[in-house]
């Protein structure tokens, strides 16, 4: 048999998986562990994405990980309170939960007591809400087709379990801070979140990934989200690692009828970042919104893959992703819209716009439509270009310096995505970073 892609990582992981199993104290016979075992066997059979894999064509994460990440590293360090406070979003009224190197840090987290809301770590939920976890765990995420989901599933222990009861309206956002300590160790961690939103319930969840320090790190996050009938869920993902962190995130969403789901994805920094967002519309009358912004500098490589799968009629999806690429950065976008045969009267829109600021920056974009129903309205558009020279001149003619004029135009370019965030504190946070990047 041929050597699999990423064989050296697999070899290291095999030993770790055995250790991991032993550390579970007799839990290794449970149904949940069976899912882990299946996932690991799958990973061992197929390996990590090969360079020619269409889904990872522009993002050779396997090679980057083999070269840069030592999977045998188990060193863990603590972080100080100041370091933790520094990554939080100012003025955001939220329930904060802090995870350091993947492990839940109770001392820095809020104790949440709200009617209709149940939050616990994923590890605890396996014991306390076994049935719910079994019902949903690994069902939505693409364990079979994505090696990184399989890897995450095999080692799933850390992360959070959130359940919102039917009709509960949770006003306060839930903010999950995942902080990697790259000051003195090379953290590698898997995060597994399960979010169940009950009928007619409403909730907002924020997930923020940061790395402190410049050591190499690897984060692999998987979220499974279930939005029940008539529920409304807003989801934020802000990724702000360092130039030596590797990050992959898979978000899989299932929407039931008349539900509403919004995903906001902001990518700011990292060596190589890959975001997979996968929304399945399983009911009629759903609405799905996807906003994305990536502002890249240095040698950062960000890859956003989104899939919206319209299985049922009369639904609506709208996607807007914008990117600004500076220095030697690289932006990749792949948006897929599927409209199945039954999904008549679907309206699906997708737009991807990119600005390149230097000749060393690149963009690879692939907006993809696959449609099997005839009575639909679908469109996608994508543009790549530079700032409008005439607009720049217009501002300069009014006495605004070129750098400032450039900043104004870039700010305007990003503003519709920022406004779509619809949260003052988060908008302010993104604006501040944008401003500092533009050096005005």
């Amino acid at each position, binding site marked *: 048999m041929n050597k699999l892609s990423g064989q050296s990582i697999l070899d290291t992981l095999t030993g770790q998986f055995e250790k991991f199993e032993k550390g579970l104290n007799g839990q290794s016979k449970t149904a949940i562990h069976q899912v882990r075992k299946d996932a690991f066997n799958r990973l061992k059979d197929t390996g990590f994405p090969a360079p020619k894999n269409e889904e990872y064509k522009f993002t050779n994460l396997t090679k980057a990980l083999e070269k840069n990440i030592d999977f045998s590293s188990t060193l863990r360090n603590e972080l100080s309170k100041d370091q933790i406070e520094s990554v939080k979003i100012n003025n955001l009224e939220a329930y904060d939960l802090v995870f350091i190197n993947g492990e839940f840090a109770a001392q820095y987290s809020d104790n949440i007591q709200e009617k209709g809301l149940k939050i616990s770590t994923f590890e605890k939920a396996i014991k306390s809400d076994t049935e719910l976890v079994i019902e949903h765990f690994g069902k939505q995420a693409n364990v079979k087709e994505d090696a990184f989901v399989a890897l995450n599933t095999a080692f799933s222990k850390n992360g959070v379990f959130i359940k919102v009861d039917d009709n509960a309206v949770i006003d306060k956002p839930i903010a999950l801070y995942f902080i990697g300590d790259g000051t003195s160790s090379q953290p590698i961690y898997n995060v597994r979140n399960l979010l169940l939103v009950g009928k007619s319930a409403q909730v907002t969840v924020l997930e923020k990934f940061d790395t402190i320090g410049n050591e190499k790190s690897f984060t692999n996050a998987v979220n499974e989200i279930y939005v029940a009938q008539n529920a409304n869920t807003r989801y934020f993902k802000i990724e702000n690692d360092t130039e030596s962190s590797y990050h992959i995130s898979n978000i899989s969403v299932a929407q039931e009828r008349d539900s509403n789901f919004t995903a906001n994805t902001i990518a700011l920094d990292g060596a190589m970042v890959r975001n997979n967002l996968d929304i399945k519309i399983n009911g009629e009358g759903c609405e799905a919104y996807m906003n994305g912004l990536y502002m890249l500098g240095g040698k950062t490589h960000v890859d956003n893959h989104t899939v919206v799968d319209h299985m049922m009629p009369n639904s609506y999806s709208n996607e807007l992703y914008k990117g600004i690429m500076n220095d030697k950065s690289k932006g990749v976008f792949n948006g897929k819209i599927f409209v199945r045969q039954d999904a008549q009267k679907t309206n699906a829109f997708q737009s991807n716009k990119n600005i*390149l600021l230097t000749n060393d920056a690149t*963009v690879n974009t*692939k*907006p993809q439509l696959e449609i*099997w129903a005839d009575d639909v309205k679908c*469109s996608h558009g994508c543009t790549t270009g530079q700032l409008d020279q005439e607009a720049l001149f217009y501002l300069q003619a009014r006495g605004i310096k070129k750098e400032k004029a450039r900043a104004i135009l870039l700010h305007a370019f990003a503003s519709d995505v920022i406004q779509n965030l619809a949260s003052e504190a988060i908008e302010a946070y993104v604006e501040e970073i944008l401003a500092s990047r533009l050096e005005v």
Partner: protein
Amino acid sequence: MSNDDQILEEFTSKEYEFGWTVDLEADEAPKGLNEDIVRFISAKKEEPEWLLKWRLDAFKAWQKMTEPKWPNVDYPAIDYQDLIYYSAPKKGAKPKSLDEVDPELLATFEKLGISLTEQKRLTGVAVDAVIDSVSVATTFKDTLAELGIIFCSFSEAVKEHPELVRKHMGSVVPVTDNYFAALNSAVFSDGSFCYIPKGVRCPMELSTYFRINAANTGQFERTLIVADEGSYVSYLEGCTAPQRDENQLHAAVVEIKAAKDSEVKYSTVQNWYPGDKNGKGGIYNFVTKRGICEGDNSKISWTQVETGSAVTWKYPSCILKGDNSQGEFYSVAVTNNYQQADTGTKMIHIGKNTKSRIVSKGISAGRSQNSYRGQVHVMKRAANARNFSQCDSLLMGDKCGAHTFPYIDIENQSAQVEHEATTSKIGEDQIFYCQQRGIDEESAVALIVNGYAKEVLNKLPMEFAVEAQKLLALTLEGSVG
């Protein structure tokens, strides 16, 4: 109104109208593919040693390759050993003039509407006709020769202009480019060759007509067009095949080279037999077409109307190497019943100030699948590159599919690239509007579809545009309701 009447008339004749066969005595190679067959074809064509070697190298490369699986099409595996790789209408010595051509053959072309003797004088189109694998007649050769234009069958070119053929063949589509190009390179039997000398503007449309006649054969032809500095040529290609229950393979290669300040316009109306209503039979059309704008200010334009074939796999591409060079791609692809098409283009911007434009209109009906797959690649050096792409899909019925796979890869900040795609169906209000004015539903659909595709049809030379409009109507008949 006469045009509309004709469309209506076409509607009454339901099936594929070019589905007849002619009993031509054919000279065939035995079934199967091996080195001996490659040698057999080469010997049959009395080819020089270098070409035989070229073919054998291609064959060896092909043996190592595997059939591509990435196109969005689905067909039973092809048994490459069950095909006949060479079939030529039997005849004695090569005819000197048309009077000596087999009358049966001439009748075939009359039937196709291509009269090799008379019609050419009226329309002023020089035709090279290829039946099965062999070029049977080329018209207007002498008139063109006066201008220094070479327009002849590929095998003739090998004999008479070996230096030109040897220099340019395989330079745009290398032997190992892809599976079907390699197969073609190994077993190609004939095709057309065209050379336009410096500063010459070809006074008439050049045209090749391809026809598959014999059963169980694959057709592998090669076209090579070389436009020297400052020249211009417009080239047409048409194709038909008989109605048969089994699938037939067609794997062609087209190469275009455009030197400084030259312009090449290549138009195709592809109407191979698409199979019957239940998806039985039809041609597998796996074609590699590529042009290179080598010199500055050169231009290559592809226009295609794809209505036939059971499975189509085809991406006419432009490599924009010269500064200020331009590439264009206009396409209408119609699929009905069980047809599948995966087609599109590649625009590779290498030179500065290069421009490209893509307009693709897909129409799917019945149970067909229609995909657009394209790439726009702006290399680092290609300052001020400009691209505009538009790909629209029209769906008729809820059993068909429309897919879009555009790849856009930009490595230069001054590039400006736009891509737009929409998918929709024919509006009921549009049909109602026509019906209200006494136009029946099917004609209304034909009318709307023609309007939808007009942007592309307008780019076709006049004679072809009329034919293409009729074809559109014909392909879509019975797809409403």
